């Protein structure tokens, strides 16, 4: 394992400590519950927004806590949903008079932890609503399965409800907005290499030198199929071929296009993919009104990328354009 790490069991707490030390004026780290929160939370003139998930997806979600996005993030261990108790305590710590919105990526473990926690929080008198994000088209939704996964598209839900809450929207309104953004957001990813969880110390799966995993999950879950590695052009065709017809996105649509790096892929390659996707969409009559290129929701050190489309309307566009001040910044 080639990682910067001390004791792998302390990987997550040590990372969280680093985030707090780098942002002393704006963020607070609460070691007992493994959480990062805004130093000024709760603010009683806005709904508080919390997202939890396993760790290993940074900057999601601990690095997008701040004005205009999350009020707190409660991560679990690497790739493990947070314990129910941590979710509950996080909700209590940031509980605002206007309520708490819990954002959850749709996975079995996360779903259970958040459902248990929100039941208990309600029992304690908190006004809590929970919203599930499930943008991953790689997984077929059906009553026989656990439903689609939440992946990089969660950024758009967080950004939209974060902006709306800053503008004073109430809990019902935030749920409406979050569900709306989730409903027009679709993602699919491709892995070129596996990732290595620090505590495991070895790659999570094996991938041949000339292979890629199409539709990979952000926890290294296998995707739709394993295929021979092809050119960037063909990869974009594959991703658009899965994402575009799913909603479907149609000629005349104005979209946000995100090329998200999975952790080990340099941003140069992401921009290369972006350019190809932008042009292919334009050729289909789909206009990219807003672009996102970089790392938003990663899978540790996995080389790979995901492509997300969001159908824009005036409301969503304005919320995405609103300012935000988060730890994950450049200058």
């Amino acid at each position: 394992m080639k990682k910067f790490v001390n004791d792998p069991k302390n990987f997550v707490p040590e990372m969280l400590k680093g985030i707090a030390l780098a942002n002393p004026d704006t963020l607070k780290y609460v070691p007992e519950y493994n959480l990062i929160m805004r130093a000024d939370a709760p603010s009683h003139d806005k709904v508080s927004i919390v997202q939890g998930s396993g760790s290993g997806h940074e900057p999601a979600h601990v690095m997008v806590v701040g004005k205009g996005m999350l009020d707190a993030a409660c991560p679990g261990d690497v790739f493990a949903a947070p314990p129910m108790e941590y979710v509950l305590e996080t909700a209590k710590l940031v509980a605002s008079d206007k309520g708490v919105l819990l954002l959850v990526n749709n996975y079995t473990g996360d779903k259970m932890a958040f459902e248990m926690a929100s039941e208990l929080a309600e029992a304690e008198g908190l006004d809590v609503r929970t919203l599930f994000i499930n943008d991953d088209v790689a997984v077929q939704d059906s009553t026989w399965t656990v439903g689609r996964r939440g992946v990089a598209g969660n950024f758009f839900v967080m950004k939209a409800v974060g902006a709306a809450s800053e503008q004073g929207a109430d809990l019902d309104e935030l749920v409406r907005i979050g569900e709306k953004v989730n409903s027009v957001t679709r993602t699919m990813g491709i892995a070129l290499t596996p990732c290595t969880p620090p505590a495991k110390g070895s790659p999570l799966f094996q991938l041949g030198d000339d292979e890629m995993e199409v539709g990979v999950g952000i926890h290294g879950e296998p995707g739709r199929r394993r295929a021979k590695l092809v050119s960037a052009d063909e990869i974009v065709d594959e991703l658009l071929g899965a994402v575009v017809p799913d909603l479907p996105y149609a000629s005349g649509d104005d979209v946000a296009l995100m090329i998200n790096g999975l952790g080990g892929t340099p941003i140069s390659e992401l921009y290369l993919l972006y350019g190809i996707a932008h042009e292919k969409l334009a050729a289909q009559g789909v206009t990219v009104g807003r672009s996102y290129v970089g790392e938003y929701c990663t899978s540790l050190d996995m080389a790979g990328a995901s492509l997300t489309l969001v159908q824009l309307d005036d409301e969503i566009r304005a919320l995405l354009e609103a300012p935000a001040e988060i730890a994950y910044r450049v200058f």
Partner: protein
Amino acid sequence: MTTGQERVESVVRTIAETCVANETYFGDLDSVVGDGDFGYSLARGFENVLAGWDAYDRSDAGTFLQKVAVTMSGRIGGTSGPIWGTAFLRAAGVVKGKDAVSGDDLVAMLRAAVEGIKARGGAEVGEKTLLDALVPMTDTIEARLAAGDDADAVAKAAATTARAAAEATKELQARRGRASYTGERSIGSVDPGAVAVAVLAERVAETW
């Protein structure tokens, strides 16, 4: 067959130590179609249990099991925290206030755990989860107790059934949990949760 509270505690200790010892093995099983953290979650969970052990209120078997449950579901994440926590919690309810556990109690505890797991995670038998080892194992225990076998023989039979059932999950397609995302590709590998049940049953039988 009736056992005292000490035996309940020693079985829980065996379970805890076995999960800690099998961290890597269970993690590797979860890497095949999952995310590799099953071993880590169980090991950290039961490490917490072992660390909290001496401070647990053990006024009766039920109270003791409830403390174990709270440690698991409160402090451990992933799917396993809520699932195993719920299982221990429901089992605890059956023997609340009792300091001895009869054969009937044991079967009722396991049935309660199974119902708790189903309620929490929405899974049924046949969907490739730990239920696919736990339910047949419980059936065997019930049958052997009814047939009048002694505790040792019951434990051995339970282990044999759990192992066979865990191996049989290889043929199943996962419909719950992370493995379900892979659809047909989940066929061909065993379910880590079911194998964990088999390993634990074997270890309990060995140390009876």
